[in-house]
């Protein structure tokens, strides 16, 4: 696809600005009524989904060119998809998130990618991770766990740790807990260790699509060789990449499971018994890539057609991703099953969740914006009176931890697996 493919979306944008707010029906207060971190930080209309559609149109029509300001407006965005949900509240003929992706891809193609992304891309090229770490160390987190090495043997399941859990020493414990739970579940699983590659999702999110293809080719081939039919991950970014992007862009048919889904299943079938009380008031943050963007991918290769004269539909019907069927209940079911845990909800949840700030390459390219976005969420979490902010993605966690520390706050930031571990 190219920006030209979304020209009609731009022409049909009404500049209604729904994309700037949480879905209006879900608005509960003035303070937490905003949906789009980008417009709140960048302020000018160009920093919204609708604004970027107009930027695309303006560039396509030769009315403007890519300046530094335009570049910032295109990339200073979390690609969190809140805008997409809000726009689709009333529209079936708009794909703002996909259109924004193509705008990024176009700038990348034209050599307009901000310089700040180069270290990450270089690290991906040389070490297959986003974090500037030597790839040989990728499996170190699991060294003493006695997990099957799937470069040497086969298994039905592969646990994909992802860049963050592999290299962020403060976070690796979560991956180790995941392994313990997988063992408890009695699954035939292993890891790829140093041969695991970044999922490619982050590079894709900044418009470097090629990197996704490389990562997908590598990981899919490795999994195939190891006889794997299901990939399990505790990272929402990887989950989205495997479930949606690999299926769409690399024809993957592999099953994809997030740890919260597995835990939910284990709680439901009684194979996970959490008996240790964890007396804590917690609030849950829906990671964008597990929540509103965590819906199943449905292959589609169709065209626009008109019914009733001019009503816009698609032939065959186009799948609709609007956050209606994201992974929302599984983590909540797990939290509710932990004795002693009291779950209190924030105002912006599920499809209306505010982003952690790490998505869309913002953490790497626009760290101040990223930190501000996280700070907004921390305030919202604190307003619930919770002791801890719990989530299910290492990128969200890292951004939140940094924001809490930056503000010298007291809120604890935990992965849901850490809470489960406390309860076992």
């Amino acid at each position, binding site marked *: 696809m190219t920006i030209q493919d979304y020209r009609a979306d731009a022409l049909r944008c009404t500049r209604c600005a*729904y994309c700037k707010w949480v879905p209006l029906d879900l608005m509960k207060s003035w303070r937490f009524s905003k949906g789009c971190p980008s417009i709140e930080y960048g*302020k000018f209309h160009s920093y919204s989904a609708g604004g970027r559609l107009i930027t695309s149109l303006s560039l396509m029509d030769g009315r403007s060119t890519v300046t530094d300001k335009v570049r910032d407006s295109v990339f200073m965005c979390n690609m969190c998809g809140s805008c997409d949900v809000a726009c689709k509240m009333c529209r079936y003929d708009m794909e703002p998130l996909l259109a924004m992706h193509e705008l990024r891809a176009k700038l990348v193609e034209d050599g307009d990618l901000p310089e700040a992304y180069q270290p990450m891309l270089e690290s991906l090229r040389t070490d297959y991770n986003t974090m500037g770490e030597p790839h040989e160390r990728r499996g170190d987190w699991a060294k003493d766990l006695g997990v099957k090495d799937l470069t040497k043997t086969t298994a039905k399941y592969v646990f994909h740790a992802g860049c963050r859990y592999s290299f962020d020493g403060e976070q690796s414990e979560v991956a180790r807990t995941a392994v313990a739970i997988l063992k408890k579940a009695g699954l035939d699983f292993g890891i790829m260790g140093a041969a695991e590659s970044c999922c490619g999702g982050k590079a894709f999110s900044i418009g470097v699509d090629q990197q996704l293809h490389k990562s997908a080719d590598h990981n899919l081939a490795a999994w195939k060789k190891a006889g794997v039919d299901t990939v399990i991950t505790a990272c929402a970014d990887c989950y989205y990449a495997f479930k949606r992007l690999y299926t769409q862009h690399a024809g993957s048919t592999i099953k994809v499971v997030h740890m919260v889904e597995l835990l939910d299943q284990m709680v439901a079938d009684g194979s996970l018994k959490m008996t240790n009380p964890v007396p804590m008031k917690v609030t849950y943050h829906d990671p964008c890539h597990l929540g509103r963007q965590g819906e199943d991918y449905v292959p589609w290769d169709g065209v626009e057609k008109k019914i009733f004269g001019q009503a816009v539909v698609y032939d065959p019907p186009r799948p609709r991703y609007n956050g209606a069927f994201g992974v929302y209940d599984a983590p909540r079911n797990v939290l509710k099953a932990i004795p002693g845990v009291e779950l209190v909800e924030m105002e912006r949840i599920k499809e209306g969740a505010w982003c952690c700030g790490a998505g869309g390459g913002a953490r790497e390219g626009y760290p101040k914006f990223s930190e501000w976005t996280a700070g907004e969420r921390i305030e919202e979490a604190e307003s619930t009176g919770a002791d801890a902010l719990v989530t299910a993605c290492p990128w969200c966690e890292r951004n939140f931890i940094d924001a809490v520390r930056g503000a010298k706050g007291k809120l604890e930031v935990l992965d849901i697996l850490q809470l489960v571990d406390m309860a076992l």
Partner: protein
Amino acid sequence: MEISRDAYRAIEDIVGPDNVTDDPAFLDSYAFEWLAELVRPNRSHYMPRPWAVVMPASTREVQAVTKVCNKYKIKIKPISTGWYHWAAPMKDDEPTVQFDLRRMNRIIDIDEKNRFAIVEPYVICAQLQAEAMKLGLNCNIIGAGSSTSVVASACAYFGGGPSSHYMGNNSDNLLGQEWVTPAGKVVRTGSLSSGAGWFCSEGPGPSVRGVTRGNLGSRGGLGTYTKCAIKLADWPGPAEMEVKGRPPGYRLPIGENFRAYTIGAPNWEAWANCYYAIYDNGLGYIFHRQLNLAGANLATALWLTYIDPTKTLNDVETLAKDPEIIAINETARISFQLILAAQSIDGIQLQDKILDEILSQTGCYRVERYCEQDMAEFTNMYMQRLGHKHCNFIWAGGYMGSWMQAGTPDFVKGYVPTAIKGFEDDQQSHLLVECGGDALMGCGSTLGGGGYFGLEQFVSYDPASDASIDACIKHMEDAIADCVAQGIPLGKEQLYLQIGWTDQRIWDGMAKAPQTFVLDFQRQFKDAVDPNYLGDRNYPWLPEKWGEAPAPAQAK
């Protein structure tokens, strides 16, 4: 057209470099407006590009930038959320600075006891409603929905909506306002002007509110409203809406002291009678003909599709052919939505009884399928929060409202057949959405308190198709011709088309108005508050003696 660097720097000094831009792509994001393609040369989707966009954070900054504009003779065009093409500059050759007021976004106060709120321009209706409800209060949300600015509808443009029937029109609900005139003077109106607070809209002397906004509003043509107080109504529901379901068709459970009905009528006569009876009996918290925006032939199929998150618009095609749906659709063909609310169970039961009596006397009825739990809760959600107003554009991304002449139900009923026939004829081209000739939607109240309303024909077209755009323009011209032929005053289409006209053409038209003294007065008022004519022509006025026959000596 580039902004003079001196003027730009002067503005930058006031608001800071991060809050002003003249980057062409950024400017285009303000020039691009809904409906532009119907009124601009070559079906351009852009209104004229502003010279610069500036984001003041306070009244003082608005005032200071306004003074710079006076110094450099640059026009001023303020927006709140910017969802209307009148928000953009009006002419290509008029250098204009766009004020984007999004940094002025505070609810300054909600005076619970006296039931009003003081807000800045970038407070939207949904925000104010959410906060007001916590205090047992509510605000009138205009028909454009809850994404719109309270200040914009109160101070600058129209202000009617489904709840105006009970809560008043925002033009009436407007209390004190703070206004930076185009000359850069800060004016405080009503009780504010005497330092007595925000509670009253009228101060000593003539009504500033009346002169600056009247019914339609100055639409950005007369400076900037930086704050206003707005009257609130009672809210007998919970402090927080407990919304259920998945997007897009969220549902709002109906409390025991509420009802959410769709009322059907066998014919327009019965419909008007029912309206009168509802009005006479003081029924209705919200009263609107809403769901017919989809067109009377397709409405049932569309909304049953919409409330099912697994469905897409493709499903409407199948559903619209289903005999069961066709039958339901017939019962809802002439219908409207009615939300009842009471402070007590007894109160709502009494309202129900009154409604039953009205229905039996007028031959109207509750449309059964629409009153079942799923549709009723969806209707309740839609009407209470008005968070689905972008559905106006649901069919193809383009909607233009023709007709919308307001008056008594008998007057409106009178133009309905012409409006239906004209739209049906124009759909024969297949270049507009064929949803039936009756896509008439409208407020139960275009004047605060009801009894007076209008129906607007929802003409859906595809803004990505030149042929469809042209068909919509043709429809606008046809509607005007129909009105002229039937002696009906012209509707919204005329107001829209004027955007593409020259000043001279507009003035020629205005000069034929029966009471041009209003337009003369407005010119004199403009001379006083806008000596450099920096507000655009959205505040209408007539040049002195325009259209009068030249004196014989001059004629020679």
